[in-house]
């Protein structure tokens, strides 16, 4: 599903976010992306979402080689992914329904489909009664669930989550995690960046570990993951 081959990402003079990173993530897997702050997790996710371009190396996602991807086809590529961030990036000027409906409007869905899909997505994250609420009136966990509903409403094959539990307490983190696992079980490939140790301890899943922009061997070998990460790690 995702393939990195000797990918580096530099910012300006000497700032290195990723350095010669190679790995492969299989379709249908659930992978933790771990590493200390500044290790390059967000940068890696941004490369996958084509929000940044690698300084060198090649990236292939869902069979698409990014080197040959045209700029005008990038939006269509992004529409096939769901993205969740720590700051949930909900829009405060519209209600929950319209926040969740946005990817469908962008995707050109018919009104009837918008209604049924948003209804189903809100049902899944258990927020149907809050459809008319504004994000500011919701708790952090509820907001994050709206973000998940929005990321998944267009039924993407790949979900990128960047510390979705970063602002939440342990109980809420677990709630979010269960929700993501639920989507994973329905066939969505999930790549979840986190440094939430309790989460890593509670769920023994495949791990891709970054350290100072380099890919290092997973600290804990994946056991329960259905599609374990196949490491093709950086040549050292």
């Amino acid at each position, binding site marked *: 599903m995702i393939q990195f081959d000797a990918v580096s990402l530099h910012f300006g003079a000497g700032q290195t976010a990723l350095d010669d990173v190679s790995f492969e993530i299989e379709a249908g897997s659930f992978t933790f992306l771990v590493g200390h702050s500044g290790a390059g997790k967000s940068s890696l996710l941004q490369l996958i979402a084509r929000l940044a371009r690698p300084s060198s190396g090649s990236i292939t996602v869902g069979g698409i080689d990014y080197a040959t991807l045209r700029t005008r086809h990038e939006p269509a590529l992004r529409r096939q992914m769901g993205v969740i961030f720590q700051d949930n990036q909900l829009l405060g*000027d519209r209600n929950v*329904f319209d926040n969740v409906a946005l990817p469908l409007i*962008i995707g*050109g869905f018919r009104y009837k489909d918008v209604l049924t899909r*948003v209804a189903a997505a809100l049902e899944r994250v258990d927020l149907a009664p809050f*459809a008319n609420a504004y994000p500011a009136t919701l708790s952090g966990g509820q907001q994050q669930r709206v973000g998940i509903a*929005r990321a998944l409403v267009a039924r993407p094959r790949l979900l990128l989550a960047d510390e979705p539990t970063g602002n939440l307490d342990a109980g809420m983190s677990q709630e979010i995690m269960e929700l993501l696992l639920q989507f994973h079980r329905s066939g969505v490939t999930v790549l979840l960046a986190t440094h939430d140790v309790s989460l890593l301890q509670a769920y023994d899943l495949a791990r891709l570990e970054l350290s100072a922009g380099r890919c290092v061997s997973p600290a804990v070998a994946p056991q329960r993951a259905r599609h374990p990460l196949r490491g093709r790690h950086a040549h050292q």
Partner: protein
Amino acid sequence: MPISDSITRAAGSQRGYTARGYAWRRTRTRLAAHPVASSVSLLVLGIVLALPVLLSFLAMALDDHRGDGDRAVTLTAYLETSVNDLDGAALASRIAARPDVQTTRYISRDEALATFEAESDLGDALDLLEENPLPGAIVITPEHAVVARDRMQALSDEFLGLSEIVEVRYDLQWVERLQAVVSLLRVAAVLVTGFLTLTALLVIANTIRLELLARRAEREVCHLLGASRSFVNRPFLYTGVLYGLVGGVLAAAMAVVAFGLLKAPADTLAGLYGVDQGIAWPELSRVAAVPLLGAALGLAAAVTTLYSAAPGANVTNS
């Protein structure tokens, strides 16, 4: 799965969920979100555009007047007394065929005499003469483009070169005065129109720029969710068009009112220059064109803002 009441209540009307409908809805919501600021901007826009619109109405009214120049600017060519009516009329039609001449009218010696007798106290005196002393004449109306002192002089010299013509007279003084005033007004109007249109463009561009900043988060989220550039930009283009359109309506309304106020004194002025019917109201189609031009201006302002100094839609987290 049946859709619950809470969902249908939360959903807006169907029209707002297409790409274009969404853009219009966003545009309207944003405009309504800051009613005072929006109204002030629109009013500023209307006032700024009203003067150029008024000037163009006046210029068009003056242009229309150049059409009824028959009595305004003419040359009168006096013929040799030996030229008979047949030859005089033939000469008149030959002159009329020239590209720089609009029309001609031949005045026979008899007609000249009749006119002289009717209009002059000295008419009776002519009865004392045995023969009609008045020459035939051709009244020549040149094309508008020719109405300038050097061109008129050249034309007059040419006619003098014809053997049948002994004298050419024309009075340009009042025309020149009027034209001096008109061309002064015209240059002033062009300058004012240029400056104020530019001002209007900047007002709209600035509004769009502020909107871009205020809605940065929204644009970034849309970008992230796979929106094309045109989807992200569309609400801002619509905002520009809407501002231009409403500003244009206000400007047209103000200009028509101002035109009404100016009409009476302008008609008096026209009367002083021998133009009887005064200046004409602008045609409805010209008034209606103002909002459309405003909309085009707004679109231009939005496009330049979006595609030049648009704060990038780069998405960064953490």
